């Protein structure tokens, strides 16, 4: 890991994240996946939005874009379509990716453009200090929900699938090695890939909801996650209150930027 840090991180550590924040763990999982696949560092681009998690891009030694809140995906789409040779990885938060960025999320999935999106799901807006997000569980406390949240959270994996994503996986900061694995698979997948990385914000989600310190929150991840394989053997009752990790969905569909070449061929034939 030390070598990976040397190679893939910019000399800007320590990072700004709070003590115990899971963002550092998820970020290193991304790096390990990149290293595992041997991606060309010069041909790999990381795009993020705005949020604590989206600050990750600044620490990583690639071409990186820290874009606007919610807008990582359009920027990533522009990069990938303009230069399909680049590996484009998107880092986003639950607020960034599914609140203000929700429309880009479903449309990018629909187009099946070959981007790998790692959504850091800490169930809260960390950067702005603890407001609820579309992935905050019902009945949680947040600074904008002093009486508890009413809204249901998205099942972001289901949503991605319904929107057209061809690879959907979930991992956790606790299961960091497995997270590396599902991210690597997502990067290898030729199409839109979503990896939901469940992570802890002990400061804002944890404190307000009495979830304990970082270690306790990691243990909660450990205790509530069930692998897709294990889940198959469990009854609905046994799965109550659990969430699945692993590859949740994978399918084949034409990839957008590759298809686009067909348009060019057609146009140039016509033009001649």
């Amino acid at each position, binding site marked *: 890991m030390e070598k990976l840090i040397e190679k893939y991180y910019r000399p800007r550590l320590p990072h700004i994240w709070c003590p115990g924040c899971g963002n550092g763990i998820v970020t290193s999982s991304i790096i390990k996946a990149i290293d595992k696949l041997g991606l060309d560092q010069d041909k790999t681009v990381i795009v993020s939005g705005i949020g604590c998690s989206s600050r990750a891009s600044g620490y990583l030694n690639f071409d990186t874009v820290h874009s606007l809140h919610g807008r990582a995906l359009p920027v990533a*789409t522009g990069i990938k379509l303009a230069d399909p040779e680049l590996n484009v990885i998107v880092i986003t938060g639950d607020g960034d990716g599914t609140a203000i960025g929700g429309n880009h999320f479903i*449309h990018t999935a629909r187009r099946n453009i070959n981007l790998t999106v790692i959504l850091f799901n800490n169930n809260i807006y960390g950067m702005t200090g603890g407001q609820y997000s579309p992935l905050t569980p019902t009945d949680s406390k947040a600074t904008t929900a002093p009486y508890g949240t009413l809204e249901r959270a998205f099942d972001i994996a289901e949503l991605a699938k319904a929107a057209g994503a061809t690879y959907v996986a979930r991992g956790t900061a606790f299961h960091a090695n497995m997270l590396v694995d599902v991210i690597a698979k997502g990067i290898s997948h030729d199409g839109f890939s979503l990896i939901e990385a469940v992570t802890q914000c002990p400061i804002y989600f944890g404190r307000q909801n009495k979830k304990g310190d970082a270690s306790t929150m990691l243990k909660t991840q450990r205790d509530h996650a069930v692998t897709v394989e294990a889940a198959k053997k469990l009854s609905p009752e046994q799965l109550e209150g659990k969430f699945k990790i692993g590859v949740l969905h994978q399918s084949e569909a034409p990839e957008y930027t590759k298809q686009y070449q067909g348009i060019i061929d057609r146009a140039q034939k016509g033009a001649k």
Partner: protein
Amino acid sequence: MAKVLLLQGNQACAEGAIAAGVTFFAGYPITPSTEIAEIMAKRLPEVGGKFIQMEDEIAGIGAIVGASLTGKKVLTATSGPGFSLKQEFIGYATIAEVPIVIANVQRVGPSTGQPTAPAQGDMMQARWGTHGDHPVIALTPASVPECFTLTIKAYELSEKYRMPVLLMLDEIIGHMREKIEIPDYDTIEKPVRKGPRVGPSEFKAYEPDSDGVPPMADFGTGYRYHVTGLVHDETGFPNGSAAATEKLLKRLHDKVERDIDKITMYEEYKLDDAEIAIVTYGGTARSAYAAIDMAREEGIKVGMFRLISVWPFPEKEIAQLAEKVKVIVVPELNYGQMVGEVKKAAEGKVPVKPMSKYDSEPISPKELLAFVKNL
């Protein structure tokens, strides 16, 4: 070989983009700009470029920002409502210094307004539409051939200063068809982006040359740099200190202001001996040419100062004009926008009269003539 064609302003704008070497367009349809998107959808694949219709205007500008980072010349086109939606990203491209060109074909506002009728109501928005301090370059063509040439010019400026350039068309110019002589695109000099002159290890992404503009590396070429909308220092990484903040914001403004004479473009029409100066731009300038010709026949000494670059505003030139003429008239298809700038520049030296029309119809030459005669 040059061709003589009858084209719409919107078409000429799209062709100008192709001629300038644009290979990427992302946008969202909106009247009266849609033809630009439609033509790019057809033309770009022919030249090996890419067109993508995004889910909304925000995504449209977001995608061209991304594509520009890979070294492509890029375009998006819109009208009022979409222009409002793009504002946040315009600020991003400004602070992150990403060259992009945005065509805004103006229609009647506010809000949905009158989608198919002409106005020039977004001129001040072009200057101040995004939050925070930022410089702006905006150009306004007054003919179909100028739509073509100014679009190419927009790329020159955008690439040179690493910033968004706005093409402020109006529905009159965007939708009218007139004669245009289009040169062979191979004969047109394509604006070039200034690339790094040092290797990746020495490269500081936001270290400016003496012209205030940092060289820009294409993504994917090994320079591995960081692009952010946060205040940053020469490394490109966030730095919110007072010194870094002031330095960055000052440089962003300075790189334009120091070159204002090079950027400023205007046309003088029968202005030499004029006692009355009409200051106008875009579609309304067409009425002014005609009105001036009519007035001159009646012996009235009137001429036009036509703004071609509207932002940065040619304060110096207008101040000089204010010394020379007896009255300045500013006809516009809005409630009075650029007239405020003219007033500011004139500093009370000469009366500045707005002639604001905001009823969704162009100003006819006769109306303008009558106004001038009634002064």
